[in-house]
């Protein structure tokens, strides 16, 4: 059963899994970045504040920060990305997930699928 997915205006997706949140970057973000060649992930146990850069994804083009949508503690990172950063391009919402976070606050300013689609639409069509 598909869990509800939420989106940030900075192109992360967030999925509730039990008490934890699984976080990644959106298909739109992955396509805009182009081929990813390196993903820098935080240490497990690392504590982040809402809005902090929690990971870095680097494409052939540039490095981009990934922002934590909520304060929390990193429970798990996707170790497969160390050797296979291209998983983020191939399956950004699935095998290309970045990290699992135990939230210590509530999600705010999140977009649902329709809201995010509208945002992308407005950003790509001047």
């Amino acid at each position, binding site marked *: 059963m598909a869990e509800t997915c939420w989106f940030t205006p900075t192109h992360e997706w967030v999925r509730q899994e039990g008490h934890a949140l699984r976080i990644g970057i959106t298909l739109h973000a992955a396509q805009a970045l*182009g081929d990813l*060649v*390196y993903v820098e992930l935080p240490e497990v146990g690392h504590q982040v504040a809402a809005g902090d850069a929690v990971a870095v994804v*680097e494409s*052939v*083009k540039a*490095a981009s920060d990934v922002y934590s949508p909520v304060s929390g503690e990193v429970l798990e990172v996707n170790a497969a990305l160390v050797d296979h950063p291209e998983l983020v391009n191939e399956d950004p919402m699935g095998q290309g997930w970045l990290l699992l976070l135990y939230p210590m606050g509530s999600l705010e300013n999140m977009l649902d699928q329709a809201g995010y689609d509208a945002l992308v639409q407005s950003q790509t069509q001047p």
Partner: protein
Amino acid sequence: MSDTLQKTVLHQVQHDGGAVMAPFAGYEMPLHFGSALREHHAVRQGCGVFDCSHMGIIDVAGVGAMALLRRAMANDIIRLKNPGRALYTVMLHEGGGILDDLIVSWLGPDRYRLVVNAATKTADLAHLQALAAGEPVQFVPRPDCALLAVQGPQAEAKLAAVLPDVAPHLAAQRSFAVWEGPQGTARHGWMLSRTGYTGEDGFEVVLPGDQAPGLWNHLLEAGVVPCGLAARDSLRLEAGLNLYGADMDRDTTPEEVGLGWTVAHEPFDRCFVGRQALQEHVNRFRRVGLVLQTRGVLRAAQTLWLQDRQVGMVTSGGHSPTMGCGIALARLDLSCATTAEQLQVAIRERLHPVAVVEPPLVRRGQITWPRRQPMGQ
């Protein structure tokens, strides 16, 4: 914003072909066509084509053309033994700094063609016209022409298949040879050079702009992979070829950026612009290649450290698709030995070890570092 960007004659066909565009030097140019990595590997292993029509093509003609170019360029076109040869050179200002790097082709008696960088083409022309004031030299910029770079080990075979009438000329061309289509033939207005910016074999084709979309399409039908600026950058970085505006500019001299070999100091009585300044200049740094020894990506402006002393800076960097790691071109203080084993680079405030290497890192499809053992050992 995008209204102010210029477009090459291939813009439409590239857009229709799925190009992701980005602004570059005042033009909207293809960044990639879906995967820059795939394009990179295609050029190393097969054949790719790049639209380089944004670059500046300037024809220089007249009885004063040769004397002017011998004065304007740090390399000496007297080294060209006959028409149909090309020369890589830098153009300096009186202070010895680099105004541009370019290729001069000798087309015929008193006829030369320059291919210069897109971002500098207007300034280059003004500089040359000022130098030539009062002399019998004519400059004709050629925005009517397109420039396609067909690069890779299969470049000759693919071009020959698409242009059977020029196949014998392609086969006869050595590196830096130039062939001009004769008047009265279908190839009038075409120029084929065995040159490129990828470290692979290949050709650069100048042709009338209205014929460029046809050639582009025929190459793609023959299996040549369309490539964008991202692959062009990773290929030239692996090949150790400088990018003007990043690895060199008007504040650097040729020797400081690894281009000392392009300066023709002899004959001693040739007075080229910048000569005097170069003689008096004390080099401040040298250009080196870097290979990142950990995971990550090297980028321009990252600083280099030997213990707690900053000894240099990355001028352009990226991920090497061929080597599968971060590589860069960098400036290293002359006080720092190139054999330094403790050199580190700061990436997001963390230090990572880097190896200093002599570019190129990849040439003709082969990784040149670490150097292979000599044969028989």
